[in-house]
């Protein structure tokens, strides 16, 4: 995307002009990636307002409630951040494979199976009274590894057998959920809980707490950190460069001697680990056990977030927070405006469609087209 690795190529002239024009090039070519999505958001807001008017409801009230419920009070902001925490991680699970040209939508399965793995491995450790910190390390390792394998399978099948990764990762999601249900309703079931099949609870002492001073769990901090790290990995390292080359043209990449297969599988492993980590936090920060509540659709919402962020790890952060805010305020909208829950889905859907359509606008406005910026991918 906005790659500025070689500023010297941008222009040739006196040093000061060079710097100046390079700066303008950077600003103008980056601005396209900010102005167009904002424009698309405004258009979807407008379309949604028409929808509300057709229902006889006030769009102003709606946006006021979204603001109040999602961002207006200290409670609302924490509510929003809490809801965006899993979305950042599951969006990363889509964005990283997307960089190498894969439409991988199996984050939900990796989250569920990763969360289940960390809950399952915690049980003997909790029984043996291993200190919480060590237990968490093992849980994280198990969750991330199992999640990584889950998406990795789809990546491997893509590379080795040419299996469509979108279909296989989606199907693996259902297998993952079924595997968890099999154990949770069978050998690992907590028999003291006759009405909701779950694994044994890990107990309060083993719960990953909240970020001090807030009501938000550590999954948010880890998600932010990973988004920044992965952005660095994808835009500032040879690995990231090789991934983008392979994503652009796998045959050319192969001809260049790039290990495309390894790159594909690595991207999928990273993606799965992110989703598995989200599963770990669902277990260790929220549920305290693995059960069907892990299947909450975070993996699927993550797809939306990643697409809206144009698979840019850094852009995932604001988009995930925006989504978190919309979901957080959805309840207030339901309660105050007497609108059904699906209203918020309509807004999400409209936003998604308008943003996808807005993709066609890139490169069409002269104002963003600066000579020398054209070859920036």
């Amino acid at each position, binding site marked *: 995307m906005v790659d500025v690795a070689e500023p010297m190529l941008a222009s040739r002239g006196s040093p000061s002009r060079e710097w100046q024009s390079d700066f303008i090039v950077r600003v103008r070519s980056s601005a396209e990636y900010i102005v167009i999505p904002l424009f698309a958001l405004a258009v979807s807001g407008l379309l949604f307002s028409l929808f509300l008017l057709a229902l006889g409801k006030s769009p102003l009230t709606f946006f006021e409630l979204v603001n*109040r*419920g999602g961002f207006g*009070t200290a*409670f*609302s902001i924490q*509510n929003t951040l*809490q*809801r965006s925490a899993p979305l950042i991680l599951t969006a990363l699970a889509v964005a990283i494979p997307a960089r190498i040209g894969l439409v991988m939508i199996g984050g939900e399965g990796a989250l569920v199976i990763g969360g289940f793995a960390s809950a399952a491995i915690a049980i003997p450790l909790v029984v043996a009274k291993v200190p919480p910190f060590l237990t968490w390390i093992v849980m994280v390792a198990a969750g991330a590894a199992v999640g990584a394998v889950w998406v990795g399978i789809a990546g491997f099948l893509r590379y080795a057998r040419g299996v469509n990764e979108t279909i296989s990762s989606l199907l693996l999601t259902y297998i993952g959920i079924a595997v968890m*249900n099999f154990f949770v*309703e069978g050998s690992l079931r907590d028999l003291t809980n*006759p*009405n*909701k*099949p779950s694994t044994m609870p890990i107990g309060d002492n083993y719960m990953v707490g909240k970020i001090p001073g807030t009501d938000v769990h550590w999954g948010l901090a880890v998600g932010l950190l990973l988004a920044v790290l992965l952005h660095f990995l994808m835009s500032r390292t040879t690995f990231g460069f090789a991934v983008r080359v392979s994503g652009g043209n796998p045959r050319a990449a192969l001809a260049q001697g790039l290990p495309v297969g390894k790159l594909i599988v690595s991207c999928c492993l990273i993606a799965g680990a992110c989703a598995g980590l989200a599963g770990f936090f*669902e277990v260790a920060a*929220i*549920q*305290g056990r693995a*059960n*069907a*509540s892990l299947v*909450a*659709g975070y993996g699927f919402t993550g797809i939306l977030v990643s697409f809206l962020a144009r698979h840019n790890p850094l852009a995932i952060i604001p988009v995930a927070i925006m989504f978190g805010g919309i*979901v*957080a305020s959805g*309840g*207030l909208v*339901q*309660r105050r405006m007497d609108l*059904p*829950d*699906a209203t918020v889905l309509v807004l999400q859907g409209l936003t998604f469609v308008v943003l996808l359509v807005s993709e066609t606008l890139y490169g069409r406005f002269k104002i963003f087209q600066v000579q020398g910026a054209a070859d920036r991918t």
Partner: protein
Amino acid sequence: MAYLNLSRRTFLQGTAAGLVAAGSSSHLAQAAGVTIGIVYVGPRDDFGWNQAHAVAVKALKTLPGIKAVEEENVPETDACAKSMESMVNLDGAQIILGTSFGYFDPFMVDLAKKYAKVEFRHAAPLWDASKHPKNLGSYFGYLNQAHYIDGVAAGLCTKSNKLGFVAAKPIASVLSNINSFMLGAKKTNPNAVVQVIFTGDWSLPVREAEATNALVDAGCDVITCHVDAPKVVIETAEKRGVKTCGHNASQAPLAPKGFITGAEYKWETIYKGYAADLAEGKKLPNMTSGGYETDMVRNSPFGAGATEKARNAATAAMADLKAKKPIYVGPLKDNKGNVVIAKTYDNLDPFLDQMNYLLEGVVGSIT
């Protein structure tokens, strides 16, 4: 037209009385603006569990001074905790009713600790005085009693003596409904057997339709179910031309020809009780439960599928349940031949909440 005859004196009297009332009882003043927050796991019009609650909330809203704020489709994750907190913080809710099983632990338990002045009540028998905060509690209805009534009626409506039961998961509350339905059917028709198919999850519409068709193909001519939203089962059975008994809320509109009756919760008894307690400034009970004897469950009005005999037998059986006549008269064997219920148990006996077997008379397996 007495109201129009308002002199200055009567006006002053009235205002003064109002002020005194408001001053003397802060509880009453508070009750004038009681806000109750209700959280549902699915849509409010699902013809099932959520609708049953929503119907009760609608009744609650008609009471003066009660404001109810509702939120639907809230998953059993921290989303439910946040929705409830939002009701407390942004709507000023004084009672929060969580209607889905998974809301309780850890979410409502933690919230009750965090918001000590707000009353939290949850729709499943999970509250434990020794472990949980005092501003938390449970309420639930013994729906198996209403399924028993379904059985009593169904036993007299079947010709093939085969009754079909589409069930979600083999957990205690589901098994209790199946067993009670069978015992009801046996009471009026000793030859009746109940054939059960578990779909494996609470909401699997395709598999529910398949299970219904399979049961009808196997000769069942009355179908009932225990899944989240019985719509698919009831509609499929109606299409196949067999009779149906409902579950959770009234599905009578879905089966104009074959509907016999259905097992329904009567949550408004409990909800109105809470509202009344708050209005009087009384502490809300921590545990509210019961069946016919306390008016917490009911059966849907008889549909076209119910024969005259079935109606009479069911009505008589309701009177029996109101008089606390036991359903589980021991000794009873499971369908593998082991005695699992050695003696007669009271309808609300906790022993029956731990059911993990299908009784003799039920065809099917929980493993």
